[in-house]
């Protein structure tokens, strides 16, 4: 291996991430000088097109931002508009929301763990190669994902862009028998998910550590999914510090860079990370006993003993653990479920501003709406997790590319691709994504 003064790597398309974009890594004199995550897909202006629309419309309109996590958009939108209108949804309707959200976590995590991320740890090109090498693991992932798909379809009305969600709840609430029909597949999926946690625990993980502040919702009632308070855990701090959602836009500030069409964010002026690692660090003690067992099997240690994982490669383990948790939570909710007297709470319009935040599979998703007295939207703000994570992904790339500069171009490119996939970026949310260029001068 030689140390070259100038090199350039180019990847025409980064596989196994959502959307399109490019990555440029500049190297000069053996040092990575700059990293640019270049998201060039045209912005979609959802916040602008929401202006003038009725307060009842954001759940359906914003669901179209993403085909992977439409439930997250629906739930954050509902919470924000209901907040503006002074309505709080509770009881079985809130349980149904959490159940629907569990379905989205299960299907999203199962897809990423088994088909998108695992091949990186096994030296395989893609899910098809993994299926050839380890058919049983892919079959197991398919069963888990299908259990999540079925949950979303049963409650949401259809698997893609659910149509049964409305402001205040649902157009129609399922009866107990409809949900009970899902139980056998969910139980089987739970067994499968425990096996997956042990499977990923056997992978070889590069030794790495990110030092960005973590941002996740926290909820005293349970592991935050569908609600919670923004909470920050800094790399040098053991104590998680919450802040009111009303301060979100003062703390999480969006900025524009010339090389990306997607807005990015900083938290109190620093690049931060949201998503599975942040959730696990902030809320891991609230996981169920089976999920905590799965965490140990996945090699994450014991969060109750304060073992915070900051290795981005190990996000696959956290996703496996969260899948176990979500399946158990789904079974718990179904067991206790009694249909609500009516499937939704009325949400009459009033003038005001409301905010809502939930934990999308990829991290904290924030919505804010300002309504006039007729309920028409005057202003909207949506801050998705992948948009927030762009800076942290660049930090990881800078660190990982610097450590791998001695590698041949092809190997270094694969390292960079892996570094991006650690965060399961959803570019259609942030706006879309990825070609890679490394310039060495």
């Amino acid at each position, binding site marked *: 291996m030689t140390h070259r003064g100038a090199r350039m790597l180019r990847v025409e*398309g980064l*596989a*196994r*991430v*959502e*959307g*399109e974009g490019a990555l440029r890594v500049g190297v000069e004199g053996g040092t990575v000088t700059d990293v640019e995550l270049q998201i060039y897909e045209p912005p*979609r202006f959802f916040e602008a097109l929401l202006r003038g629309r009725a307060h009842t419309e954001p759940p359906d309109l914003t669901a*179209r931002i993403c*085909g*992977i996590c439409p439930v997250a958009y629906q739930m954050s939108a509902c919470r924000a508009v209901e907040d503006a209108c002074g309505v709080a949804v509770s009881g079985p309707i809130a349980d149904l929301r959490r159940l629907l959200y569990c379905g989205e976590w299960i299907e999203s995590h199962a*897809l*990423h763990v088994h*088909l*998108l991320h695992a091949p990186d740890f096994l030296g395989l090109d*893609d*899910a*098809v190669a993994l*299926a*050839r090498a380890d*058919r049983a693991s*892919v*079959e197991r992932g*398919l069963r888990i*994902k*299908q259990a999540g*798909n079925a949950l979303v379809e049963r409650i949401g009305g259809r*698997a*893609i862009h659910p149509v049964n969600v409305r402001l205040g709840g649902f157009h129609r609430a399922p009866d107990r028998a409809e949900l009970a029909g899902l139980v056998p597949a969910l139980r089987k999926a739970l067994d499968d998910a425990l096996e997956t946690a042990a499977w990923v625990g056997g992978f070889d993980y590069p030794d790495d550590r990110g030092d960005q502040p973590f941002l996740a919702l926290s909820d005293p009632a349970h592991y935050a999914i569908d609600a919670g308070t923004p909470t920050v855990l800094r790399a040098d701090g053991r104590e998680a510090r919450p802040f009111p959602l009303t301060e979100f836009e003062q703390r999480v500030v969006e900025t524009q860079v010339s090389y990306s069409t997607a807005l990015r964010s900083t938290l109190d002026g620093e690049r931060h990370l949201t998503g599975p690692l942040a959730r696990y660090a902030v809320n891991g003690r609230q996981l169920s006993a089976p999920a905590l067992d799965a965490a140990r099997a996945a090699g994450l240690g014991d969060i109750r003993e304060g073992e915070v994982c900051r290795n981005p490669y190990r996000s696959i383990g956290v996703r496996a653990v969260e899948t176990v948790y979500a399946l158990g939570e789904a079974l718990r909710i179904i067991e206790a479920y009694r249909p609500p007297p009516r499937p939704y709470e009325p949400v009459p319009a009033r003038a005001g501003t409301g905010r809502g935040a939930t934990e999308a599979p990829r991290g904290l998703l924030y919505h804010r709406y300002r309504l006039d007295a007729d309920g028409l939207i005057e202003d909207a703000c949506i801050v998705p997790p992948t948009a927030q994570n762009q800076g942290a992904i660049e930090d990881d790339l800078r660190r990982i590319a610097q450590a791998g500069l001695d590698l041949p171009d092809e190997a270094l490119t694969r390292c960079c691709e892996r570094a991006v996939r650690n965060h399961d970026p959803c570019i*259609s949310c942030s706006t*879309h*994504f990825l070609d890679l260029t490394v310039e060495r001068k």
Partner: protein
Amino acid sequence: MNGRVVVVCVGNEYRRDDGAGPRVAAMIDHRVPEGTKVALSDGDPIRMLALWEPEDVVVVVEAAHVHPSHPGRLHRLDADRAALTTRAASSSHGLGPGEAVQLADVLGRLPRRLVVHAVEGTDFGWGTEPSAPVAAALPALAGRVLDEVAAAWRGVRARDADPVAESAS
């Protein structure tokens, strides 16, 4: 009965020519023989794999990127060729129908027969209206799909009538 006929219409109706699949679904839904399953798909391979059983005949309807491009031109691909196609990166995490066919093959989940009918698109931007060449080609595409479905049902009935001969053929 020895399997069904399943039509999987892939695409996004809000991405112009990518909506060819869903548009064909609307055109044929009430014209297919009873028992035919017409399903919409966003191309997610795992959802696609759940749409059929091994004994089914599957007709996939898709918009295609082709280079060099002849927008509106129709294509018919069998499973082997379909597996060689990969979807543009705008699909879910870079996985699409081509990967679905490859995964089905590796996992032993290929249906009895899988055929893809595709129209070459040219505009996959935001919007609900297809480009003029694709819009003009959609009736012919729907007609080809209906012919394929009719032929598939003839095969199903022949197998029902003489399963030994059909399995040996």
